[in-house]
């Protein structure tokens, strides 16, 4: 039996996959609005299914929020206004990129802090190690003593 006879089925199945994606029948006045809708839905995080953005989520609240974004775009609201709307209701959680504020500074710059700290510790260890090496090679012999040492070693 030829396994290749299943190939057309497989191809058709794969071709149908995009049909399973979340598609809302939202209509826009122009491409720019549609682009903004896409960008915003990608930026906001779904409150219900926490590791998906609004675009990727099938959750009920994500559906409602997409509809709300659509409504606000058509009503002429700016992106900043839509972001503020979401923030007032769902807080920082809704943003994949949290806003820069006093209490989110650590979140933003914590990794940099750790990098600097790690770099500093690494540098200290490196310096100490190279210091020890220098101390080991320089044990305080004057030229005459060094000459004698070399002669003793060369005797063998």
């Amino acid at each position, binding site marked *: 039996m030829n396994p290749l006879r299943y190939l057309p089925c497989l191809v058709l199945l794969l071709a149908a996959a995009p049909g399973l994606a979340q598609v809302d029948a939202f209509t826009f006045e122009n491409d720019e609005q549609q682009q903004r809708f896409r960008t915003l839905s990608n930026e906001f995080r779904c*409150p219900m299914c*926490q590791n998906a953005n609004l675009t990727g989520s099938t959750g009920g*609240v994500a*559906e409602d929020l997409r*509809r*709300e974004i659509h409504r606000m775009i058509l009503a002429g609201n700016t992106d900043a206004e839509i972001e503020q709307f979401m923030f007032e209701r769902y807080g920082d959680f809704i943003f994949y990129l949290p806003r820069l504020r006093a209490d989110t500074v650590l979140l933003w710059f914590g990794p940099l802090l750790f990098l600097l700290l790690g770099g500093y510790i690494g540098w*200290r260890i490196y310096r100490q190690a190279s210091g020890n090496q220098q101390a080991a090679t320089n044990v305080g012999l004057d030229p005459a003593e060094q000459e004698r040492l070399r002669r003793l070693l060369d005797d063998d």
Partner: protein
Amino acid sequence: MKKFTSYAPIAAFFVLAIVLWRGLYLDPTELPSVLIDKPMPTFVMATLEGEPVGNADLPDSIFLLNVWGSYCLPCLVEHPTFMRLSEEGEFPVVGVNYRDRQPLALDWLDLNGDPFAYSILDQDGRFGIDLGVYGAPETFLVDSEGVIRYRHVGVLEENVWREVFLPAIAELRGVPAAPASR
């Protein structure tokens, strides 16, 4: 200096261990509500029975706002708590029928009993967005001024009522909270 570098790994280990140990007991699904200490959002809606309802119709005592739906199994689990509260009558319970279908919701109340003073019909979840709701069940504790004081996400079991809500209510009333008994 020698001392610092030799103790640093052990110190780092303990700091990391404490941080990760704490992380084991955090619940990342627990989202703080932004609406705590903010007034109830303004609404002009209808009840499940079709009566108009707005902010002026809210109870002027401390009350509970419970987000529910007939599709929501956990809501059935917490239902007896609200039935008891409504029988005792001290704290009115206002429902928000969230993303449901009206006939199904009415059937659900007929079948299981209706603990709500009334239920606000929020078929498309728009009011839920204003409340920062992300799924039923959720329960808000609202004070007599109409200010949201606490939000509980998930099933409101009797022990949650005893250990979280009663102390919060006592605090609202200016009475020092009684230690929670288990």
